[in-house]
Every structure is written in C-alpha cells, then in structure tokens.
C-alpha cells in the first residue's frame, strides 16, 4: 500500500516534469509562452514512431525525436518567434496558430488514428502488485532530463552565458554575447525536451494528433505555478502537484485527483501570483 502510493507519486511527479520542463525553459528564459508546446511533443511522438517502424531501437528513436524537434524549434524561432520577443500576447497568438497548423498537418499526413509501437518491457511484481517496467524507464529519463539541464546550466560555459543572458540580456550583449544565438539555442533546447517527452510517452499513450492537447494544460498549470525559474520552479510545482495527484488519484479517484490539483493551483495563484519561485531573485 505504502510502496504503491510512493510509486504512484514518483511516477506522477516524473510525468509532470517530463511534459513541462521544455515549456518552463522557454518561458523562464525568454518570457515566450509557447502554446505549440503540446504539438512539439506530438511531433516528437511521431518522430519516435517513424524511427521505430523504420527498425531503429527505441533509445535511438528517443534521441532522433529530440534532435528533430529541436531543429524544428530552431526553424520556428527563426521564422516566427524572433520577431515577437517582448510581445507576450503576440507570441501567444502566433504559437497558437502554429499549434492548429501542426495538428492539421499531422492529421492530413498521418491520419487521425493513434499510432502504436510494439515495444515490450514486461512488468515487475512487487508485493503482489504488478508495475509496468516502462514506467521506471520514464521516471529515469525524466530525472535525467532535469539533472542534465542543471549540469549544463551550472557547469558549462554555455550554461553560464545562458544564465547571464537570462538575468540581464542588455548587459550580456554589452559583454559581447550574441543574444540572438542564445535565444535561438534555448528555444531549440526547450523544443528538443518537448520532442523527447513526446517520444517517451509513445509506449504509454501512442502517437495521435491530439496527444499535445492531453498534456498541454497540465504543463501550463505546472509552469505558471512554478514561476519564472525553470528548473527549481518545475521541480517544486511537479513535486507538489504530483504528490497530490498521485495520492488522491489512488486513494479516491482520478476525477478527485484532477479536481484537487486544480483547487490547490487556484489557491496558490491567489497567494503567490508570480508562482512558487516568483520571489526568488536568482537561481535556475
């Protein structure tokens, strides 16, 4: 019972971190609200399915999905986003339009049906209860994503430049940093994380044009409550909501789980309008 609850909570937290980290990085770094985040995930899911169907092993398909959607993100940044920095409502509209376009395009090209891959991971028995082995893979990838992002930001020169630009773009460019390049790279990295998330979800949800819709609301709530610091915010908000959702969904039901997450989100927004990390001046 306790082991199951713990497992469900950790799984729930990991799912939330997985689907919202890419969005949080783009929002936290550039104050761009990417409404096409869900569709980036959806593209990652299709990339993964295509790779697996072409005979690639699953881990390679994950990498390919991240890379492909990352490159796609860079193209989107160059063609659309870079003209709209500092205009939050305009980026909102532009990325919303992009998301509608992507859903339509994918439906036309791949059809409305969900696509599946046959990957067998089997299950793990513990205390008379079966657990899907793949959920442990998902938990590991989700934690890995956060750790790698933290390492890049903390230990590399690129990370230093990005953090500097994030704190004060004008000063950073005064010191010779190419701001455009940083923004482009950051957007691409956020998109790559979204693509990876979509690919990792394929064995659980399949790939369908509506995949993004199922997760984008959760990701947004998570990012808004997390606040402007992408890593700490994502970890904090995911842990909070994941714990509530995992526990309540198991003890009561999925409906009560969703309702309680929303209630807590509303109360928190009233108390902390800028999110959990809203008062923190520096950090990640």
């Amino acid at each position: 019972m306790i082991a199951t609850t713990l497992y469900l909570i950790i799984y729930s937290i990991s799912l939330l971190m997985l689907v919202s980290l890419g969005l949080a990085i783009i929002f936290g770094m550039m104050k761009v609200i990417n409404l096409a985040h869900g569709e980036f995930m959806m593209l990652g899911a299709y990339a993964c399915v295509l790779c697996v169907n072409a005979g690639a092993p699953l881990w390679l398909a994950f990498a390919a999905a991240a890379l492909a959607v990352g490159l796609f993100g860079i193209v989107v940044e160059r063609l659309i986003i870079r003209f709209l920095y500092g205009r939050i409502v305009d980026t909102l509209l532009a990325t919303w339009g992009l998301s509608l376009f992507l859903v339509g395009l994918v439906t036309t090209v791949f059809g409305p049906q969900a696509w599946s891959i046959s990957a067998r991971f089997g299950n793990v028995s513990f205390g008379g209860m079966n657990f899907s082995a793949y959920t442990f893979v998902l938990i590991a990838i989700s934690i890995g994503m956060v750790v790698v992002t933290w390492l890049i930001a903390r230990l590399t020169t690129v990370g230093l430049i990005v953090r500097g630009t994030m704190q004060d773009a004008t000063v950073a460019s005064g010191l010779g940093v190419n701001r455009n390049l940083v923004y482009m790279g950051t957007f691409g990295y956020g998109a790559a994380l979204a693509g990876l998330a979509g690919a990792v979800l394929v064995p659980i949800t399949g790939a369908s044009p509506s995949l993004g819709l199922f997760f984008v609301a959760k990701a947004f709530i998570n990012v808004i409550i997390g606040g402007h610091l992408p890593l700490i915010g994502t970890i904090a908000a995911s842990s909070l909501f994941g714990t509530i959702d995992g526990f309540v969904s198991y003890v009561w039901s999925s409906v009560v789980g969703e309702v309680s997450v929303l209630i807590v989100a509303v109360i928190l927004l009233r108390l902390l309008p800028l999110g959990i990390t809203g008062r923190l001046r520096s950090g990640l």
Partner: protein
Amino acid sequence: MTLSRRQFFRTASGAVAFASSYGVLAKAGLAQGNPIKVANILDATGGLNIYCLKQIKATAMAIDEINKAGGLLGRPVELIFYDSQSNNQFNSQYATQAFVRDKVDVLIGGVTSSSREVMRPIVQRFKGFYVYNALYEGGVCDRRHMCPGLVPAQQVAPLVDYVVNEKGLKKGYILAADYNYGQITAKWMQKFIREKGGEDLAVEFFPLDVTNFAPVISRIQSAKPDVVWSALVGDAHMSFFRQYQATVGKDNIPLAATTYGLGRENATLTPDENEGIMIATSFIDALPTEAAKSFVERFKAFSGEDEYVGEYAEYGYRGTMLWAEIVKKANSVAPDDVMAAVDGVTFDGAGGRYTMDGQTNHVIMDVHIAVGNREGSFDLLKSFSQQPPADTQAVCNLFENPNDTKQYEPEL
C-alpha cells in the same frame, strides 16, 4: 424587340419563380429527374473524425448503390456532405443550412450525443427527418429521429450474459467515461451484472482527457476482480488498454468493453494490446456471412482503402439503406410520410436483419460477441439474435405519444 434591363429581370424572375415552384413542376411531370436530396453532416476533421471518416464513405457508398439500382421512387439521390469539424456549432449551422438553403429531404449524421441534441431541435423546427448513425446512451424518443445503432441494454445484456454466465467471471470492476454515455452504460452494467448473479466491486469514471491510468490499475490489482468492464471513450482513454496490458495483462484479469473498436482501436493498438478484449457489437468485418463479406469487399473497392472497416462505417450504410426502405414503403420522401411508415421496416444488412421498432424509432438487431485477435481484428464467439432496444422501449412509446421529442434517462 429590345428588352430593357428592368423588363428582363421581371421576366426572368417570374420564370425562375415558376420553375422552382415544386407543385407546378410535379403537375407538368417535369419532376421526374428532380433529385432527392440527402444531407450528411459528420466530422471529417478534428478530434472526432476517427469515428466519422469511414462512415462518410459508407454513406456515400449507400447513395451510390441506390442510384446504380435506379434511384429511389424513380428519382436520383443527391448527397450533400457538410464537415462539422468536431464542433457542435457547425452541426447547428449546417443543419439549418441543409434545410433552408439546400432544402434536403433527410438529414443524416452527428456522431456525439451532444451534436445530435444540437441538431434535433432544428429538425423539429423545419419538420424534417433525421437519421443518427451511432451507438449511444439510449432514450431519445422522437418520431422525426431514428437511430440504427446499439443502445446500452441491447449491447450490455448479451455481453454480461457471455462474460458472467459462460466465462464465469462474476466479480467485475467497471471503468467508464465521465459523461452521459459512460454514466448510463455503467448503470446498465451494474444492473445486468447483479441480475446474472455477478458482483460489481467498483465503478469509476474518467474525464475524457485522462491518459494516466496507473492509479486505477493499482486499485484494480488490490480489488482483485475476475474481469474489468470498460465503457471508456476516445483517444486519451485508449492509453488504458496499453497501460493495462503492460501491467496487469488480460491473461491475469480479462477485459470486456462496450465501445472498443468503434474508433477502429483494434487496428491501431499492438497485437498484444488487442488480443483477448471481449466486445459486444452489431458488426465486425469477420462475421462469417455472405452479406458481411460482400459489404467489406464493396466498401474496400469503393473507398480504395484496404484496412479494417468496422462498425461505424456499417452504421452509415445501414442507416441510409433503412431510410431508403422506409421511403419505398411510404412511397414518398416527405418527412411526415416517412415518419408514418417507420414501424416494421426491415433491411437485411451486413450484421444481420435490422428491423425498425416504431415504438421508439430504434432498431431490433443481432448482437455479436467477439474477441480481439492478433491480426488487428476480432474473432466471432457467439451471436444473440434480434435484440430489442429494451431500455428505450421501457421509457418511450411513440405510438401513444406521437408528439414526444424528449430524451429520457432510463430508470434503473
């Protein structure tokens, strides 16, 4: 002779008014080639199109076959298609347009209960006739509406009978989509499971966007049922079948479902996930009858697609053909004449014999119990012949209350 512009318009508009006056044309015997107009409103785009794409083609195929056989009442049939884009607002807009601008003789379509409830009042207002080709929660009592699809009692009773009595899977755990179809179907499941001597351990509802089923899968394992009953609906809920197979597995606790296969899920999930799911349906591609084989072949030739066809495609064909049979019996396409001729009309279709029940304007039909196989299809296990729409019959009597237009919630 020179015509001034004003004179020209006067003459021309007079001629147009004369020519378009139906009665005049009919008297002159000129209406012979005047087509019967059929409106089909379905979602070719948007999230609901997994239920519609095949049905759109099957309806077109039915009209095509009617025309090839010489039309209806000696007149050709013209199909007008409207894409409602998975948005009820378009159902309302196009239904109005079909009656007002295109002056259609019958309205076919709508896939969700909400789209149907948007269009039924419009059909009433224009005194039209409406064919709703879907499986739904039952209870619509309206002479201007007919539904050739399954209602819960019709479908759940045979499935429970098979699962509880023949397979001996008595303790059930029920999962259903959290809206009227799921809520009502879950009640019928509980009722029939108890009646057949089974036990319902729990009932749980899921909003349509839930994709994480790990919590309920854990609860199912603690409850240790003999079988899990599903009335889950839509894309997101298909995740359940993946996650269930990856944890519990149907070998340990089997699955029985009412809506599985309607969106052709069987053809898109993996063989492991499809194999062993028990369903009750009025049509599967693999029915071993000549009618079914012929329908599947004709549909594949007509659509140029070589995939699993499924029940919702057959609904489109069935509904259109049943309406055509009613028109033949009424010897008129006028909605009021069609309404009066509904009772007892039959059509021998791909899933067996379909008989219109004039008390409810629903259909008495064969219900087939089938199980998912590794080829992305189903194997037939057993057929229950001529099941009546008993739940709707219990609350609706159009013979006694011809002016009824309500949707009743069946009392349990």
